[in-house]
């Protein structure tokens, strides 16, 4: 039950959004996030979006990893 799944926001209607989980469509409550837009990826937990997945941060992570791994001996 703790599984939080990332999904893409396809439409927004007030506190409710329609999300695409790689083909599976479900609704979720987005009232816990302030700045969700169509096209964003969000993490959903028991019917509520709890966090935005940030694509820039994802790319940043990979760059950071590269630096950290290169620095380690």
């Amino acid at each position: 039950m703790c599984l939080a799944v990332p999904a893409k926001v396809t439409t927004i209607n007030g506190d409710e959004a329609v999300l695409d989980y790689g083909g599976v469509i479900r609704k979720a409550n987005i009232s816990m996030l302030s700045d969700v837009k169509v096209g964003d990826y969000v993490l959903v937990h028991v019917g509520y979006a709890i966090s935005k997945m940030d694509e820039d941060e994802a790319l940043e992570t990979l760059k950071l990893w590269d630096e950290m791994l290169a620095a380690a001996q």
Partner: protein
Amino acid sequence: MMQNTFNDKYTAARIIRKIKSISGKRKIKLMHVCGTHEQTITKNGLRALLPENIEVVPGPGCPVCITPAREIDKAIYLSHSGAIITTYGDMLRVPGGNSSLAREKAQGGDIRIVYSPFEAVEIAKRNPDKNIVFLGIGFETTAPMTAEVVKNAPPGNFSVLCSHRLVPPAMELLLKGGYDIDGFIDPGHVSTIIGTAPYVPLSEKYHISQVISGFEPLDVLMSIFMLLGQIKNNMAIVENEYIRAVKPEGNLHAQKLMRDVFEPCSKEWRGLPVIPDASLKIKPEFSDYDAEIRFDINPRINSEDYGAACGIDCPLCGNILKGLSNPADCELFGKACTPENPVGACMVSSEGTCNIAYRYGINQI
């Protein structure tokens, strides 16, 4: 998109080479406190890739597993008194003192699985002449949702049996207990809510290295690498590997909901003792929605009958939740105790250590 990026074999091999180069010889014990991390580690056979001196053990990270029998028995009592019990699916097979919600349902109890507390409120609206009790379990990842429905004026026939718990105080209990943990892989989803700050006092007080980790295999390997780097340099700080989902401040809206509706209290965890301030109860302003206050709950089982570990016949869950034993040590594993017929709570949920070991192979643990 994002998922595939964090799943490539070349990077995995590179991280593992680096892990090997900095791991040293001394035995190092890392603990995670999240069932989803255990899934990632076991399913992908990550333990087998690590140097022999690096051990990764699961801690009390599955909310289903740590809900004590006594709290299940309260829900069963309310079901016997005619209420409709609603809860998450995994809770049905969790053993109570001498029954489970699944068994009560089979015998005619009105027990319904919901995906979200919101659905429990919908059931309450459709059944105005019945009491609807939501057995609210889970850590900081599900507590805000329970708070949200309580705060938004649900119908008068709705109430919550509050079994929510908090992760950092349980981590502190393990650190105090002297279980020789060298580093924590902090739970990514819990951290999306609470942010990084609640872990900092643990590093400061107990000199423990911590890395907040995501759930792809590469996330976990990278977090292990970062922890080993800290340990090698004698550092004890909180690093965030999962920056694509975890903001340093967490989810402020969710934190406020929790603060508005709940206050900390001290209760036992299954397999663990009473942990100070590691559980949540509903604040007096919302007592109309607190099942403990609304109903005179009196399960007819004496405290002594619950025993030391699970409160039932499971001999080892207590040690498994503290990272001291693994399922292979339990004589009931795979014999008397299976996912179809769980004896202990660790075998029930798909995030329970014994359940994961049963599905993916005990040699992975």
